[in-house]
């Protein structure tokens, strides 16, 4: 191990890690917001409400993120309509393409988590809310969603870690996040194993910190106390 060289490049690695965190942060927060209506619709009893979210989730979970990324970044340029539209300055930029794709991708997974969580709520609790005279909307906001949030939180933390690792794909569309930065550095100093090792340590540290943060969040939301059946 060439520790001195590793230390010399640490600021660059840090820059890459910051970009990685930006990508992941935007994707999982936006994804969560988009996934709430999608997940609720996916858990609906009516087939025509369920159909569209089902198709969306099936497509995004059934194809690799790399393909989706290439479809958005390279693929959209095929259409003149998009090239001439006001969206083009954004869709030409790898950062926006990567965040958009990762958001759409993770939305599908989070929606599926949410569906599982909604369906795991004991029916008696929803019946109790309705028996107390709550409207369907009120029961959804005060009973179903808070309950589903606690059931789904552990799975959501898994999804965030998976997105952290998936963000390395953004390096294929020229973004210099942690993996991209590592490849650039390797092109400069040829210390392949040392540099990949450092990047790996960075990923491990970030995922360790995320896991700890989610543990705190679970404690704060009193997930354990609410699991009593």
């Amino acid at each position, binding site marked *: 191990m060439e520790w001195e060289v590793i230390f010399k490049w640490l600021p660059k690695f840090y820059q890459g890690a910051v970009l990685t965190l930006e990508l992941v942060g935007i994707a999982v927060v936006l994804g969560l917001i988009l996934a709430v209506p999608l997940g609720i619709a996916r858990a609906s009893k009516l087939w025509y409400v369920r159909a569209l979210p089902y198709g969306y989730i099936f497509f995004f979970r059934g*194809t690799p993120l790399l*393909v989706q990324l290439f479809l958005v970044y390279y693929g959209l*340029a095929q259409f003149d309509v998009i090239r001439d539209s006001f969206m083009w300055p954004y869709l030409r930029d790898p950062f926006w393409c990567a965040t958009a794709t990762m958001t759409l991708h993770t939305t599908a997974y989070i929606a599926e988590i949410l569906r599982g969580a909604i369906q795991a709520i004991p029916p008696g609790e929803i019946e109790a809310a309705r028996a107390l005279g709550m409207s369907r909307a009120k029961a959804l906001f005060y009973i179903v969603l808070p309950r589903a949030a606690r059931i789904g939180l552990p799975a959501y933390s898994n999804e965030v870690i998976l997105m952290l690792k998936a963000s390395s*794909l953004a390096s294929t569309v020229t973004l210099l996040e942690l993996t991209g930065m590592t490849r650039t550095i390797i092109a400069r100093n040829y210390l*392949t194993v040392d540099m990949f090792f450092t990047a790996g340590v960075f990923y491990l540290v970030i995922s360790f910190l995320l896991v700890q943060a989610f543990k705190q969040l679970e404690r704060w939301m009193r997930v354990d106390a609410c699991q009593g059946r």
Partner: protein
Amino acid sequence: MNIDLYGFGPALAAGALMTVKLALCALCLGLVLGLLGALAKTSPYKPLQWLGSTYSTLVRGVPELLWVLLMYYGTVNLMSALGEAFGNPELALNPFAAGVIALGLCFGAYATEVFRGAILAIPKGHREAGVALGMSKVRIFTRLIMPQMWRIALPGLGNLFMILMKDTALVSVISLEEIMRQAQNAVLFSKLPFTFYLVAAFMYLGLTILAMTGMHLLEKRAARGFVRTT
């Protein structure tokens, strides 16, 4: 629907075959690694436990893409040193081997947890019954634990296999001619990126559906004797 593939149909089909080959080879390696990992993690020996959990934590904490790149670009020195020792200085991992090792390693790390869960889910009495009958440790594992373990581990392994199938796209980065790479080649000539990447997406979707059907059949077979057919 008639999609004009500009003569790239056969290349894409060959790519699909390569993807399937890659996925199946990685699956075999991953199952072995996962089984070993789970055995290490559930063994009573501390060093083995430590080894198993280090393997699964380390590999799961680092992106698959990084493993693929590391296996391909990072092993050049090691392989040429090995090659020199055996009198073949041009020894190197080809993209396929690097992809299989990297993806197998990742699959194995996740499979370790799935298998461990399955081993722990088998009632203790079954093992004790084996001991009481005078079976050896190996025999208890192959005759009592393994057959029951499959049924419990199968849904988890199925999920992992779907993930593995999609991760094969990553190996295109080290220029293995699978679906994604063939689509890139096609785009290079035809200048129709959306069309070809969409075709690639649907090919992966098709493979996923195939794998799902296969998984369903396997699960049904493994669950015979457990669900009452009416």
